[in-house]
């Protein structure tokens, strides 16, 4: 008996897992196209009347309860409620409406070319009714997408307003994997491809110098939105800066950026806060002297606070003949004019 109970529980758990992981279809079933087409032999136009001559100015040709009843098939429905309440997934209708709103597409043109063969695009509709909407990949099996985009650098040939559509590509440039890290490398060579969907505002949301607030702070309710400064970034920003040298400098170029926030929160020296440097940070020769190796490691972190007048603090020791010696690395060269340009002239008089 115990074994049976255990087996039953295990079966239930597996069924629940399968449901969650999407291995089983959800409780609300897709419209049973299979039952209607393959089994009952009903043609598509019996329910989707007029679709073959429709243009993108016409409404959707999805059947209603009246269609099911008046077609003579379901004269006595088993329920008084709207058929669509149980049969057919909501998102299939939403996607169909979105396609109608955003794509330059007419069934009329396609049906003529395909000789009214609906299943050419709506593949598998006679066996699987879940995803009846053709994917973009299927469109590209006929339409020369790369050629179209290559000729005009625009998606307007098929999409009415791709930016408003907010579609995420499935078949090309899929924002897959660790896209946040990868996107820059891809954008370097194909900015026009990115701009076909994203406006400058989108890029400037992170890369701009006058960003009102980071996208993840503005859209705080979308917790799955990717972002560098997610969650408790304020707490861990010093850790991130030290483990990934130069990362902050790739976007933040001014020292005021750090100072403004540190002054407000009272964690900088000038506003009465503690020095961030541990004991033994600066010492005489032979003593603990960690600041040198830290500066070699990531000079951009030093530059975040010690710019302008702060640089004189370094120059006090680091100059030829002084205690700190020559600050340049061996083999270092520069096109700067030593006695004219900053920062050379601070030392090279």
């Amino acid at each position, binding site marked *: 008996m115990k074994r049976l109970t255990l087996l039953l529980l295990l079966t239930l758990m597996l069924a629940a897992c399968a449901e969650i992981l999407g291995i089983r279809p959800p409780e609300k079933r897709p419209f049973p196209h299979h039952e209607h087409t393959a089994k009952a032999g009903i043609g598509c136009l019996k329910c989707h009347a007029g679709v073959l001559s429709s243009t993108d100015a016409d409404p959707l040709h999805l059947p209603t309860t009246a269609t099911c009843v008046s077609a003579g098939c379901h004269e006595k429905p088993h329920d008084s409620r709207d058929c669509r309440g149980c049969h057919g997934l909501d998102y299939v209708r939403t996607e169909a409406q979105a396609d109608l709103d955003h794509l330059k597409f007419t069934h009329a043109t396609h049906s003529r070319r395909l000789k009214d063969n609906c299943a050419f695009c709506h593949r598998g509709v006679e066996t699987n009714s879940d995803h009846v909407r053709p994917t973009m990949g299927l469109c590209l099996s006929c339409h020369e997408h790369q050629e179209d985009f*290559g000729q005009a650098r625009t998606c307007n040939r098929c999409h009415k307003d791709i930016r408003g559509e*907010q579609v995420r590509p499935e078949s090309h440039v899929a924002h897959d994997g*660790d896209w946040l890290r990868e996107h820059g490398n891809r954008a370097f*060579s194909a900015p026009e491809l990115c701009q076909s969907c994203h406006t400058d505002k989108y890029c400037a949301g992170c890369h701009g110098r006058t960003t009102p607030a980071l996208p993840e702070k503005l859209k705080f309710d979308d917790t799955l939105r990717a972002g560098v400064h997610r969650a408790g970034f304020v707490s861990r920003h010093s850790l991130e800066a030290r483990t990934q040298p130069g990362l902050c400098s790739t976007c933040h170029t001014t020292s005021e950026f750090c100072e403004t926030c540190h002054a407000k929160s009272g964690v900088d020296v000038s506003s009465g806060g503690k020095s961030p440097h541990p004991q033994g940070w600066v010492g005489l020769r032979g003593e603990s002297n960690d600041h040198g190796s830290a500066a070699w490691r*990531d000079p951009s972190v030093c530059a975040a606070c010690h710019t302008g007048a702060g640089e004189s603090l370094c120059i006090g020791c680091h100059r030829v003949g002084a205690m700190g010696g020559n600050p340049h690395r061996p083999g270092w060269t520069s096109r700067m004019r030593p006695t004219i340009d900053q920062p050379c002239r601070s030392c090279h008089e």
Partner: protein
Amino acid sequence: MRRVRAHLLAGTLSLVLGTGRLARGDPYRLSIDAVGYSQAPQSPVGLLVLQGDGQANRWADAEALAWTGSTTGNYDVLTAMVRLHDPRNFAELRLGRQILTVGALRPVHMDGADVRLRAPTGTSVEAFGGVPVEPQFAYRAYDWMAGGRVAQHLGPTTSIGVSYFEQRADGQLSYETAGVDLASAPARWLDLAAHGTYALIDPGLAEAGGSVAARFGDFRPEIYVTHRAPSYLIPATSLFSALGDTPSDVVGASMKWRMFPRLDVLPLIAVRDTAGEVGLDGTLRATLRLDDRGEGAVAVEGRRQGSGPDQWTGIRVTTRVPITARVRCSTELELVAPDDPRGRGSLWPWGLIALRWVPIRSLEVAGAVEAASTPTATREVNALARLGWNWGTR
């Protein structure tokens, strides 16, 4: 100067508000968002963001975003740009405040002009010039930037480009770089991309990166390398640029695996070498979609930063659950444990719970509470709110 600022701001606002009227009949978007944030222990802040973009006709489109904050005189413009182009985009002129991504150069924020020309042979030429954006139009004399890129398409799937950029601060060179970029998709399942930026003032390799990604059914492996020398990322006018080349190199690999129809797993491992110190970084991320479309999802991410002087381990759990068609609940929890807390607490938790309500298509209301224990505050609680209204197509 005050008059110039007022004119610039007024111009941007007219561009934002004019977008909708200008683009009647063509796709346009116009939205306004009001955001409030209690920001403990500092004063609460409020933010009003007005943005719009639209297409006037086949030859012109425009976009702008202006914002104002609750503190006095706190306002600015993120972008305000008009784009004139031929219908097939062979020639394009972008005027105004914009973000430039030109070849291997880091994105720059500029007030100026950008010209792009493209020949049917696959050759494209881009040139730009202007002044670097300064917050609240506080421009400085003799600050300017210029650059360009020449690129050639080799067949439909490969592109190679060479770029140049220089920026001056008070008339003196602060950045001068040359870059090379390459992207190719030699097969439907393979993507390659690489770039390199060479600093010309204090000669040396400033940044470089490469990535090879493949797609085999449910698997997407990627191998990448990056090289970054922080001394070249700060302006050459800074004393710290004179220290010389101090690169940080990373070699890493990731593998996205659609383990089940609704479950994606992404392990990532990287070896980082910084000035001779070698360390290992790793991330393991799993995302479970609660429905076929991914409207609801649960994600778990574990992360270990094992390189550098401040190593740490963290975990983040996020959920996004639609309660009804119009109401959505989201939560986020993060725990960070630094290896060396240095008296700042051994665990830094951060959590957020948010609700979003869309009563009608154009209106969006959201509220959230976030709580944290940070290195500087034992307890910190903040409230966030957003009210948004959209016009036009979405």
